[in-house]
């Protein structure tokens, strides 16, 4: 029998691979700092948005994801600035601290469901912001902590210098996005990910199948907390300043909007598409020199995307539709629910 290549499956994946390769090669093509910084920041947001989407996959709608970014960011900023640690251990410890906080908070808070959980996380987000604002001896309050980028690493034959350009930081961010994406993709494909979806889709049925609801919610929340904390660390050290208002309720809402516009059907593709497109769009809008027009257009785009995308499944769904409807010209298209 001949080996059969399912080109309808392979070609779109090859195109995705090409796009990823192009993104990785961006520093070779251009060294424009503003392009790089937009890509770095949208990568950082992508990680946070993936965390949000994972929690949403387990059926909980968290409006406090920016709080975990703030916890991660502040942990590493305090460790490096006030205690003189180097970046790397602080980076890892920040993820750990954020994860532990998520675990402890989640064990208490996650048993409340629905809109009430959203409100609790919203309140937590504000509490974190107020603490960061008022605990002046440690966080320097509203003046903010002045962080720095990681020290240069000397590999002998080549020195990775984080101060000279954003390129090493770009690869660091890409690495974190890739690691998060890989882990979340594996979670989504695995038994665990299906359990998340099961718990979210029909809680009663899932419990009757012997699935312990809290276990899956806490796992999702903790994993999301770890990676969101790491993203927060990168955020704090890239912008070289961390003030309490940088990661508050507004940013949580932004994370939520990015996730939903990108598409919540997939754990990796949707968040990345949503955050890259919306962040890039938003940061180009700030160049228009009319007060308010950025927010106006941003809001309009969000509303239009949600109004006109098929079934409100987000931008990532356009990818499948593009290949089936436009390229292969298939008449019918079944929506695959759940899995990527």
């Amino acid at each position, binding site marked *: 029998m001949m080996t059969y290549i399912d080109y309808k499956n392979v070609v779109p994946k090859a195109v995705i691979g090409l796009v990823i390769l192009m993104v990785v090669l961006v520093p070779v093509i251009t060294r424009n700092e503003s392009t790089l910084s937009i890509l770095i920041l949208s990568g950082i947001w992508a990680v946070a948005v993936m965390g949000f989407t994972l929690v949403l996959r387990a059926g909980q709608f968290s409006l406090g994801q920016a709080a975990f970014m703030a916890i991660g960011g502040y942990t590493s900023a305090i460790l490096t600035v006030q205690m003189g640690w180097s970046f790397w251990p602080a980076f890892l410890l920040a993820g750990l601290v954020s994860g532990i906080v998520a675990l402890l908070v989640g064990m208490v808070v996650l048993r409340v469901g629905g809109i009430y959980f959203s*409100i609790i996380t*919203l*309140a937590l987000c504000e*509490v974190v912001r107020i603490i960061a604002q008022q605990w002046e001896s440690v966080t320097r309050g509203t003046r903010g902590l002045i962080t720095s980028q990681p020290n240069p690493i000397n590999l002998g034959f080549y020195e990775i210098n984080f101060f000279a350009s954003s390129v090493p930081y770009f690869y660091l961010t890409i690495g974190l996005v890739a690691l998060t994406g890989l882990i979340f993709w594996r979670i989504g494909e695995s038994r665990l990910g299906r359990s998340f979806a099961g718990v979210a889709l029909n809680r009663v049925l899932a419990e009757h199948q012997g699935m312990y609801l809290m276990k899956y919610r806490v796992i999702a929340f903790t994993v999301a907390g770890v990676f969101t904390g790491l993203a927060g660390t990168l955020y704090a050290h890239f912008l070289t300043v961390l003030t309490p208002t940088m990661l508050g309720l507004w940013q949580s809402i932004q994370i939520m*909007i990015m996730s939903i516009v990108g598409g919540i059907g997939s754990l990796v593709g949707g968040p990345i598409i949503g955050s890259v497109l919306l962040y890039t769009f938003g940061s180009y809008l700030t160049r228009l020199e009319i007060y*308010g027009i950025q927010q106006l257009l*941003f809001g309009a785009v969000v*509303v239009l995307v*949600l109004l006109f995308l098929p079934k*409100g499944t987000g931008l990532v769904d356009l990818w499948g539709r593009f290949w089936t409807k436009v390229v292969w010209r298939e008449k019918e298209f079944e929506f695959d629910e759940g899995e990527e």
Partner: protein
Amino acid sequence: MPPAGIWIDGLIQSCAYMTMAFGMVLVFSILGILNWTHGQFYMLGAFVVYYAITAVGIPFPLSLLVAGLLVAGLGMLVKKIIIDNITGELYVGATTMGLIFFFEGAASMVFGMQDKGLAMVLPGVLNLGSFSVSYQKIAVVSFTLVIMIILYIMLNYTKIGLAIRATAQQPDAASLYGVSVERLSLIVMGIGCGLAALAGGIIAPLYTISPFIGGIPMLMSLLAIVIGGIGSLTGAIVGGLILGFINCVLAYNLSYFSEVVLFVLVIIILLVRPQGLFGASLK
């Protein structure tokens, strides 16, 4: 004990939160959605009152009415054009959050970013021995009482109130008995947004007006209805009073720490009674 003025300020804030919270409760119980844009309708109401008084020269009570009607129309438009065409609670929530950006951007383009202040439209103070209260503050409190009474009468003794209560309990059964749920939800959206605008308008002379004033009242009235029980007007009153007084009276003693107390209180209430103080049990 904080001085009496602080207690009065707490009452004023509670009144603003309560008036907004009524609108949110109505919208939630009929449409089944949380309208995150409510704070922006509050802001628009304040702006309409400001321009009606300064630019057009309409007297204050009339300009309040104009603000209520205009913003109610806007709310109905939003519901008709946008919310009706989106399915799913999650997507509607995200859309109304997107509309926050839209309205704030539009307001700062049209009205400018500077803070505006409305001179006291009701000058004079009432002397009560050891302290005095300005007529403006009395107007806010009595206005809220009037709104409460009107809502109470409307919900309990009119046909539309009966329809609203029926639809809140059982939308399908209500529509079987001849209630046009579609039209009713449009009207309720109008009432809700109009109430937000009235809250903004009546408070406007006391505070500054800018495109970004909507966020905090929105957050507070959201917390108020959530701790009160999300579909209950009594809950909205109690929640609004608790939050308004915490914001003012505790802040007098504890300064910033009162905010922590407020949010921790909300978290504890929700953990102990997830359905809110006056909400029906979910199970």
